[in-house]
């Protein structure tokens, strides 16, 4: 009996010892694993930054390191948190889940907005030793000739011409495809440009607009047609004689790229119109045109607004197409190209930031409207 008790006692002491040991071991692990993970990740970073290994190896390592690294960090932090007493796990776990997203959003979007706002009040050196100039950058934004041209293009050419064109084309194709047996194929093909980069699209359209001197064979489709009709070859997008209408040749590219987007949304909306309503209207003697304007259009109005606002936001920020096609020259500059030119070529941080803030202020109301519209539709 006594002996047994002693043994139990010993066992208890032993298990307490093991518990202490495992605790120490766990703490050691909790410290060691993050350190090892950090070292491994840092070594991977240095390897990638050096970039002198074979290309395929760099690519594989980059993918494994980037994706695996993020997953590993989550796993490690969660593992540490879950070792804590239950109460603390519950308290801290949300930070493991939400923390990284909030940190990145703060670093990449929230703080930069405030910083850009601050920089816009300084001259060309910004916060790094620049002088405070108050609102004079903003004054320049609204008086500079190139900026006025950019506003004209953004508002007139892009919002008032490109956006309705895209919406109308998208709607037209959606309605036609809805009545055709070849719906799937037709929609796929019209939609395809969405997968093409703006740079790629610019090359495609540069090729269509290509101009050769008069007398030699025109290899650009548009000039071949123009010359065939007896015109001189024209440098379409760079043709300043018809300014500002040369912008339309850039507008065409964007309509070509974005009509598919509009079409997909309209197509889905049209499918949502109950067949009975249309049938009832037809029975009552409504023509197709009447049915279209009196029933279809009101029914899909929400989608029309969503598509329109989305394209307005897109065209307000339009950059790549203009930059690659004309570099913003020949009277085709837009807000985003002026921003790029001032910020990264002229290195005028204050002025560039002011342009960016103006762009933000222009986008905000449209975006809020867009989001509200989206919630009403409960599309997701």
């Amino acid at each position, binding site marked *: 009996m006594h002996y047994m008790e002693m043994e139990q006692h010993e066992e208890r002491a032993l298990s307490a010892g093991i518990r202490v040991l495992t605790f120490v071991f766990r703490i050691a692990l909790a410290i060691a694993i993050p350190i090892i993970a950090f070292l491994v990740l840092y070594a991977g970073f240095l390897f990638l930054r050096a970039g002198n290994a074979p290309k395929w190896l760099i690519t594989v390592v980059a993918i494994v390191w980037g994706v695996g690294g993020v997953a590993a960090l989550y796993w490690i932090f969660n593992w540490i948190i879950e070792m804590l007493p239950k109460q603390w796990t519950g308290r801290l776990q*949300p930070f493991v889940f939400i923390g990284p997203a909030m940190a990145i959003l703060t670093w990449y979007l929230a703080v930069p907005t405030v910083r850009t706002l601050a920089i816009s009040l300084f001259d060309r050196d910004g916060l790094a030793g620049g002088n405070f100039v108050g609102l004079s950058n903003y004054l320049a934004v609204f008086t500079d000739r190139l900026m006025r041209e950019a506003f004209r293009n953004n508002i007139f050419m892009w919002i008032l011409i490109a956006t309705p064109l895209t919406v109308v084309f998208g709607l037209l194709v959606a309605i036609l495809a809805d009545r055709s047996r070849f719906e799937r194929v037709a929609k796929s093909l019209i939609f395809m440009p969405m997968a*093409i980069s703006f740079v790629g699209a610019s090359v495609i359209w540069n090729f269509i607009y290509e101009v050769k001197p008069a007398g030699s064979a025109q290899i650009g489709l548009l000039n071949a047609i123009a010359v065939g009709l007896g015109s001189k070859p024209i440098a379409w997008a760079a043709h300043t004689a018809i300014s500002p209408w040369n912008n339309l040749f850039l507008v065409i590219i964007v309509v070509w790229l974005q009509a598919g987007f509009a079409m997909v949304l309209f197509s889905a909306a049209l499918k949502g119109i109950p067949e009975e309503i249309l049938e009832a209207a037809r029975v009552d003697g409504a023509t197709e045109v009447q049915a279209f304007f009196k029933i279809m259009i009101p029914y899909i109005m929400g989608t029309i607004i969503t598509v329109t606002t989305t394209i307005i936001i897109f065209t307000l920020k339009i950059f790549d197409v203009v930059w690659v096609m004309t570099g913003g020259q020949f009277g085709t500059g837009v807000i985003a190209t002026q921003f790029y030119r001032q910020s990264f070529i002229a290195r005028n941080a204050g002025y560039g930031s002011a342009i960016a803030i103006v762009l933000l202020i222009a986008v905000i109301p449209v975006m809020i409207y867009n989001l509200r519209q989206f919630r009403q539709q409960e599309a997701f």
Partner: protein
Amino acid sequence: MTIKTSRMQRLRGPLFVNGILALLVLVWMIPTIGLFVSSFRERFELQTSGWWTIFPHREWVNVATIDPREQGLDATGLMEVEGVTATFEELREGVESPSGKRIQWVGNRRIGRIEVQERQWAVNWSFTLGNYKQVLQGKDFEYRHADGTVEVIPGDDFSSALFNSIAVAIPSTVIPILIAAFAAYGFAWMKFPGRRILFILVVALLVIPLQIALVPILSDYAKLKLNGTFLAIWLAHTGFGLPLATYLLFNYISTLPRETLESAFIDGASHFTVFLKLILPLSVPALASFAIFQFLWVWNDYLVALIFLGGNPNFEVVTMRLAGIVGDRGQDWHLLTSAAFVTMLLPLAVFFSLQRYFVRGLLAGSVKG
């Protein structure tokens, strides 16, 4: 009678609809078809004839060559050739003879020759893979002219740019989705103080155009020596894609059936296990939709890459390389067309194979604000 007209209408309706639709589709396709066809044409042909000449067409073909000196023609005055009387200048432009032939002086006044041309059916069918070879290789490319001179053009090394694009695009797609999925789960299924305010912040950040962030982030990167690294651009794409990803995934994850999760918690599963074993598999449709979007967006992005990878020619992605050719050699259409097609190949493949998810994503609002 009425039956007949209605049948007529029924027939004419689809014909009209399909006709207009086919026309629109054709107009939409022509730019891409032109690029595709041209990318396989020889450099010289590409520069001297339109890509549509691969279709049968009528063009002037030389049928006889006359040496003006042998004929004793005087190039300074009027000349009579094949029933045409014309000056040198007129012949330079080409003069049509009454018999429908064209007489044209080729070359200069002293040593030129006269060609008699006839209008004939022709197709320009000589295709090559050489353009692609030159665009993909990093090596110098020798180009032999008709007169025997050799021109050396550096290859464009698109294959390494393709690797770079893959190394940029895949992590830039997976990382934001992972981070957003964790955050979306947290917002949807965890209780903590400040949850509502933080979520409103995420949605509010949807409005920020990424241009706003470029200058401050670039200066941060300069301090951290991150410029021109993959990590820099992954994080940038993650930051810019995160509000939308979180918003969309939250909308999806928060609608998953509550009972499934509760029974898992009762069984003693932790949040992490539930997220990994239950939520992620259930969210595959939403994840796939956003993934395709983000992938295409990153692959096709030019601005972000230009700014954060611009200083490192070693890590240039395909859009930068293509824009580079546009800038440096905008007339080399044999390179531009094939290079553009190389950059489009992967997104087009993704697009056509996963179009269903892509459309679903669009309908869910996967459009960058």
